């Protein structure tokens, strides 16, 4: 028989053993983040006194890899886009883990995005919807003017209540289903909260978006949320979560180039467009968009002769899409991009022909050579075999959209025949 004493067994004989390593583990929070990484050791001072990372070439390669992954193969892209940007301005957007606050940084990024968006997609339209207090509120209509959106957004900077993705999806879908069939419907949600508080079944809303061929992408600010992932998977969008301010901007900007067309809806169709003439400088006319008298500038719709202030837009009277030819041309590069440059391996530079160029074909700066002073990668255009530096590669692919090498060879080869 055992004797039972009414006390629990002593399971904690001494707690003192724990105290010793407490001092070790208990580093200040400010130290903790950096101590493991020793990021300062990866830096080096260059001749002009600037701090540079040690392995420049490696970093440049990483950057290129990232860009290559984003560009993807040569595919059909929808260049007439109708995008609703859904911004979560719920309670969670007030958190300060991203500086100055989640809302602040989101507004900054979206502002940059809107400008970049219209720069890259001059034929597209964009609108903003805010999620606040459990409801979705349309801030701006679908339109082609960046300034309207930015102004409206800047004057609406407050956050409160819960976020409801379902409400926002339903609202955006309601507007997006009305647009013409050649347009590509997209939703981009910037989501701060960790939960969505919906009045109904969100899965149904996701399903409806899918049926309506709306591509939904989400940029999260805090963590991966299942429903967002599901939404993106179902509708073919991209889901990404930002780790810091710079990353957030990068992620939002990723949505500026037009996305690939989904196979099932990629039916070629003809779109009626008008190319309006710019009005005389001193002509006075009633503006159709602002409903007021304006002097000078402005464009006249070729079909109904109404007057609009900005291009591209839709004619307010007859609904014709009005663009100018540079807009079309600027959208064109998405369809026929400059081929990605290839990295020239260092071996080829050392053993190869003597005629290898020392300078970048684009900027005439010195190119990196093995053992040389300049560090970094050397790149070659697969068509014209000219060598470029890393910065030119970026500039050519991101802004110029023409390869200087290819362009000049085509000129020089066509000249003799003349």
């Amino acid at each position, binding site marked *: 028989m055992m004797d039972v004493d009414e006390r629990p067994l002593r399971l904690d004989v001494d707690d003192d053993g*724990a105290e010793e390593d407490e001092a070790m583990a208990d580093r200040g929070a400010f130290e903790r983040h950096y101590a493991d990484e020793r990021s300062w050791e990866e830096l080096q001072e260059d001749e002009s006194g600037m701090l540079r990372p040690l392995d420049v070439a490696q970093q440049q390669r990483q950057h290129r890899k990232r860009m290559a992954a984003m560009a993807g193969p040569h595919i059909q892209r929808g260049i007439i886009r109708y995008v609703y940007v859904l911004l979560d301005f719920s309670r969670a957007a007030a958190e300060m883990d991203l500086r100055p606050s989640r809302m602040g940084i989101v507004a900054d990024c979206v502002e940059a995005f809107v400008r970049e968006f219209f720069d890259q997609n001059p034929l597209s339209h964009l609108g903003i919807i805010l999620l606040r207090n459990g409801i979705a509120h349309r801030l701006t209509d679908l339109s082609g003017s960046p300034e309207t959106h930015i102004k409206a957004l800047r004057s609406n900077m407050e956050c409160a209540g819960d976020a409801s993705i379902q409400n926002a999806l339903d609202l955006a879908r309601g507007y997006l289903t009305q647009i013409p069939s050649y347009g590509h419907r997209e939703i981009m949600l910037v989501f701060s909260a960790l939960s969505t508080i919906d009045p109904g079944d969100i899965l149904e809303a996701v399903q409806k978006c899918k049926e309506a061929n709306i591509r939904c992408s989400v940029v999260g600010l805090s963590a*991966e949320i299942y429903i967002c992932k599901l939404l993106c998977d179902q509708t073919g969008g991209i889901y990404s979560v930002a780790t810091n301010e710079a990353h957030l901007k990068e992620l939002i900007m990723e949505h500026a180039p037009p996305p690939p067309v989904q196979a099932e809806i990629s039916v070629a169709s003809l779109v009626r467009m008008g190319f309006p003439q710019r009005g005389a400088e001193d002509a006075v006319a009633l503006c159709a968009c602002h409903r007021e008298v304006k002097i000078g500038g402005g464009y006249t719709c070729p079909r109904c002769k109404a007057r609009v202030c900005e291009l591209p837009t839709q004619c307010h009277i007859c609904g014709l899409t009005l663009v100018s030819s540079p807009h079309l041309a600027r959208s064109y590069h998405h369809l026929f991009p400059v081929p990605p440059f290839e990295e020239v391996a260092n071996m080829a530079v050392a053993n190869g022909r003597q005629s290898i160029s020392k300078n970048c074909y684009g900027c005439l700066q010195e190119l990196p050579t093995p053992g040389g002073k300049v560090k970094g990668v050397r790149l070659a255009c697969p068509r014209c075999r000219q060598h470029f530096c890393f910065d030119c590669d970026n500039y050519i692919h991101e802004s110029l959209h023409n390869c200087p090498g290819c362009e000049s060879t085509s000129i020089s080869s066509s000249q003799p025949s003349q």
Partner: protein
Amino acid sequence: MKFKIDGLTVYFPYEYIYPEQYDYMMDLKRTLDARGHCLLEMPTGTGKTITLLSLITSYMLANPSVGKLIYCTRTVHEMEKVLEELRKLQAYQEKCLGKVAKMLALGLSSRKNLCVLPEVSGEGSRESVDAGCRKLTASWVRALALDNPNIELCSFYEGYEKSGADALLPTGVYTLHDLRAFGRERGWCPYFLARHMIQFANVVVYNYQYLLDPKVAGIISKEMEKECVVVFDEAHNIDNVCIEALSVNIRQQTLDGATRNLSQVTQLIEKSKATDANRLRQEYNRLVEGLAQRGNLPGSDTWLANPALPQDILQEAVPGNIRRAEHFVAFLKRLVQYIKARMNTEQVESESPVSFVTSLQNQAGIDQKSLKFCYDRLHSLLLTLEVTNTDEFMHIQTICDFATLVGTYTRGFTIIIEPYDERMPNIPDPVLQLSCLDSSLAIKPVFEKFQSVVITSGTLSPIDLYPRLLNFHPVISNSYKMTLTRDCLCPMVLTRGSDQLPVSTKFDMRSDPGVVRNYGRLLLEMVTAVPDGIVCFFVSYSYMDGIVNSWNEMGILQDVMQHKLVFIETQDVVETTLALDNYRRACDCGRGAVFFSVARGKVAEGIDFDRHYGRLVIMYGVPFQYTLSRILRARLEYLRETFQIKENDFLTFDAVRQAAQCVGRVIRSKADYGMMIFADKRYNRHDKRSKLPGWILSHLRDAHLNLSTDMSVHIAREFLRRMAQPYDKAGQGTNATLLSQADLERMEKK
């Protein structure tokens, strides 16, 4: 893919293999070569099942002398998963080898899961399906039906019987569902077919009970040959299963039921005396000859030195005083009467089986030898009386189990009589517990009979304790780490609240409002940082009730509800299932939810909180067993005396394995990620921490050992952001997590 391990060709149905799977196979192969037992710990989500199946079946192909693979699982669900994997494997083997690789694999379960007769399978409980089946298939019922066509029979069983020896399954892999479909199609009873086919099968998948519970094992597993390989999967609680298999609880209603049963039996005896006295006569003669000759208990068979029935009992004749049916009933009546008297006590009593039997001898004139025979004598009597509704005789069966166990064993058991529940001393609820203290008793015959026994699970740490508890000598015991392309596990030890005061569920601290509030703050901070599902485990139901109440009063619960819905596990299974279902829905639709659960509860054992269903699990406190429990104390004492295991060692081991089991729920595959918070300062101590499984420990960084709430929230946010980034699944260079056939060939050459 196909590769060689030590000269053995292994067929593996996937293109790639994880390095740890390869190591696991190496060890497994060594064990099989040595014809010994082994103990292997490998984290869930690393494809343990397919590794086991693939190596053992490949081994069987190469060495035809090896018998069957007996794969034991805990639940029907797991059984189905194993068979699904096996099906893939079989398809692959057939592709590689053609007709040579004929494999018959089947799952065996109770009638409830296999019956295809709509009238019977519609019954609710397992017992009623069993009884319903017996009513239609018992030999005397069928004999009667020959004369009287009005008597209902089971058409499927008749179909099976009619085909006789031709009723065979073609080779292939059969899940329970397949068996039912096959049975329906042929008109054969799947249950009896499966039982029959076991002797021809290469792989049998069934429940632990079929090997460990002596009552079931005797019927089902007696025909297994010695050369079989036995696998116990998810075996971290195998010692408890062993103990439960040999423990009996008798309550007031058991006794009442037993009394009722006895009077029914008496009536039946009277009736059969009047109609067919010959039958009882025959039974008497059989019993004189001894149980062994009776046919359904083959005494000379090497199968299972049945722990409930020692060898000698099988050869011996049944003692004279219980041979006659009336005498046996009178004997049982005396026994029930005696137990009733014993339970009518005011204070807690605990004694050894020996002293119990002695006092039984003195006061009721019941000797030990007759006690031993109770189980089989009753079985025989019920057969003779042609009782089919066996579910109604459950109570008297319990009493007979008790009698047989108490008569057989002198060591390793204790009898404890408690007049009331500890928590409610005012309500009399007497219970007599015959508790097995030695987990090696039930599993001993398995180790002795089979050449290789593999015990494996995701959490078997500390791995050196299991051989001592189960009293065997493993050839190999090993624990494998998980190779990961990214740090998808984030265990943390939280020792302080946000006010820097220590938190613990230690007895003297648990009711401290400061600790309760700190625990609440922790949850509140976490719900604002973690998406989708969070699971909290508490040490006991009463503690959970208490702390949730306090949180409610403090307003913490209301704040939590603003972010996530709260669900609670209760002791009611239906309620808990409903709560779980709604919890999952809340996670699916993005609302987010918290599930409060209890370590050692149903949820902690069997429910997975993988992917978004569990991004974070918080283990509040160290889940020690209720140390005032008399059974536990008796077991601790026994362990100390018999196996030299210190009380504290065992308690800590048991608590930490439960905690590991709870937090392990959160990650079920390599693509998954999750955080684990051990919220108690005691986890920071070496003796607790070092007992965690290796795959958790290897991710527990020193910087994460002594955290306060604010620091852990910071780490959580960072971790979640990092995990949300896209990643390369295969890994590269030294941290490659996938090996292809070419990689393996290269390794082989080295």
